[in-house]
């Protein structure tokens, strides 16, 4: 890592040669594994020349929990809880992505109402994901106010999750074949309230940051990456769009009725931290548009598919009806075999293309399941983006990339 001309041993100059000649000396700095400014457990071994970063090397895997191995023993419905724990800032997207993968394998058609509810929940998850990312970017540049303002809204989104599935962070939302329950009147009221209140809060947040001189000085032209390099590094999601490539899985390969909604894909220009921030902000506006459209056109009808072999029957039926009891038992015990097949399904996660590569050999559990975790793939570009910048820039870049430890290590 240390280059020849910067060899520290050359400092042994004899005293009679006059004043001490200062030779460049590299400092090795361990940023992490636990550091209050890195949100999660990341270690970066940086070589610093004064305050400039010369090179860096990431160590990951601190919370590797072997999800892919565990998944090979679990029935399909039990894998949803594993997906919760990947990008825990937007668990519903992971849950729905997994459900859709299995539904694709099983060939189940989902009713429109369930698809729309899924879209609403996924866009709420995107809101909360981008809120956290942009809010924390503010904190890392020294602006705590914005973060505190918008955290109330994140709380409100979590209350909607609670209303829909009973949990807040690791949601385990929905079921294979639809939603676990319909949107309750309370949930609908809370979503409608959010749609009224959120734009004001977001506008206030933007007023605090978008043209803020101090903020801009910290983020403009920091950690820029060209579109070409970003594609080569496998960037997806807001980070790729900030570099100017309009790739969005929701538009490119629509799933769950995304083709019914009208929304724009914001793109940046230079791929720097400021662009990433702005793209996320604009995506929140677009998410609000999608939620509004989905709420306005929410179709009537069932909220789960007619797939009794895979979708748990209503509890009342289980007590009265023999068939329902049998299905209930078989599903809970994981005794339903899936067809043989090989599926790749991708959804637009909070930070990029979240892919599920599932191979089924006809058993109760997947033969092999691989998660394409977006931040695992784009985090490798981090040293290149930090090169030549200062330590404080490195912190800001990491925040703006939205690297989530749970997803990184899976």
């Amino acid at each position: 890592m240390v280059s020849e001309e910067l060899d520290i041993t050359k400092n042994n100059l004899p005293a009679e040669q006059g004043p001490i000649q200062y030779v460049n000396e590299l400092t090795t700095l361990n940023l992490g594994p636990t550091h209050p400014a890195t949100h999660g457990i990341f270690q970066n071994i940086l070589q610093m020349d004064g305050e400039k970063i010369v090179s860096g090397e990431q160590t990951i895997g601190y919370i590797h929990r072997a999800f892919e191995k565990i998944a090979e023993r679990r029935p399909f419905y039990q894998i949803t809880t594993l997906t919760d724990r990947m990008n825990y800032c937007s668990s519903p997207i992971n849950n729905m992505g997994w459900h859709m993968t299995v539904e694709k394998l099983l060939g189940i058609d989902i009713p429109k109402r369930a698809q729309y509810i899924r879209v609403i929940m996924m866009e709420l998850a995107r809101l909360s994901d981008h809120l956290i990312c942009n809010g924390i970017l503010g904190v890392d540049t020294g602006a705590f106010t914005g973060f505190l303002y918008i955290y109330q809204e994140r709380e409100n989104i979590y209350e909607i999750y609670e209303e829909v599935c009973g949990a807040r962070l690791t949601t385990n939302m929905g079921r294979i074949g639809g939603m676990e329950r319909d949107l309750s009147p309370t949930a609908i009221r809370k979503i409608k309230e959010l749609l009224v209140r959120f734009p004001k809060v977001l506008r206030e947040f933007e007023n605090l940051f978008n043209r803020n001189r101090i903020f801009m000085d910290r983020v403009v032209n920091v950690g820029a990456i060209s579109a070409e390099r970003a594609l080569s590094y496998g960037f997806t999601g807001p980070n790729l769009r900030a570099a100017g490539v309009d790739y969005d899985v929701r538009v490119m390969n629509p799933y769950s009725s995304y083709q019914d909604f009208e929304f724009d894909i914001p793109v940046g220009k230079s791929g720097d931290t400021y662009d990433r921030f702005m793209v996320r902000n604009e995506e929140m506006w677009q998410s609000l548009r999608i939620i509004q459209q989905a709420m306005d056109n929410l179709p009537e009808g069932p909220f789960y598919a007619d797939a009794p072999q895979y979708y748990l029957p209503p509890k009342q039926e289980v007590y009265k009806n023999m068939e329902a009891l049998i299905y209930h038992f078989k599903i809970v015990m994981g005794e339903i075999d899936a067809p043989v097949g090989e599926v790749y399904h991708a959804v637009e996660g909070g930070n990029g293309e979240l892919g599920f590569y599932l191979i089924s050999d006809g058993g109760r559990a997947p033969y092999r399941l691989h998660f394409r975790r977006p931040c695992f793939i784009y985090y490798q570009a981090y040293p290149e983006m930090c090169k030549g910048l200062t330590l404080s820039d490195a912190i800001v870049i990491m925040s703006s990339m939205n690297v989530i430890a749970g997803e990184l290590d899976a």
Partner: protein
Amino acid sequence: MLTNEEVAKAIITQFGENVSDFDDPYDLLTFATSREQIIPVFTYLKGHSTFQFGFLTDITAVHYPDSVGKEFCVVYHVHSLTNNFRLRIKVYLTADDVHIPTLTPLFASANWMERETFDLFGIIFDGHPDLRRILNMEEMDYYPMRKEYPLEDGTREDKIDALFGR
């Protein structure tokens, strides 16, 4: 819009006997090739004037301990963003020779994906700049995703289920 047949035909014309097992499970064109051909195949797909498979989505591996001579399968997913077309390429390897050329000169993102595959399956990517374990600790002397390592201790008796036979 590219169709599966169109792409498959072009690939067969270019590579003839070196590509095989064309299939399209759930509309995703899949084919197998040999490890000698993997670099030419990717160079061709990336450089092709209309296909432009310039985005490497994923690299992973699968272990099939029972299929003799084809124990390991390295799976590549590539995506042509200009045509919105996805492609899956498989390379089968034998258990006693798990070497395959690296894709890092073509795609920078292959670096960690290959390290992960090496870490979990022990596939050795020849020419990789830094082939070390990435998720597990360096001292580990086995490749945990291989099927010979069961998730739970096989000797536990309290887990035997007489009714369901697992």
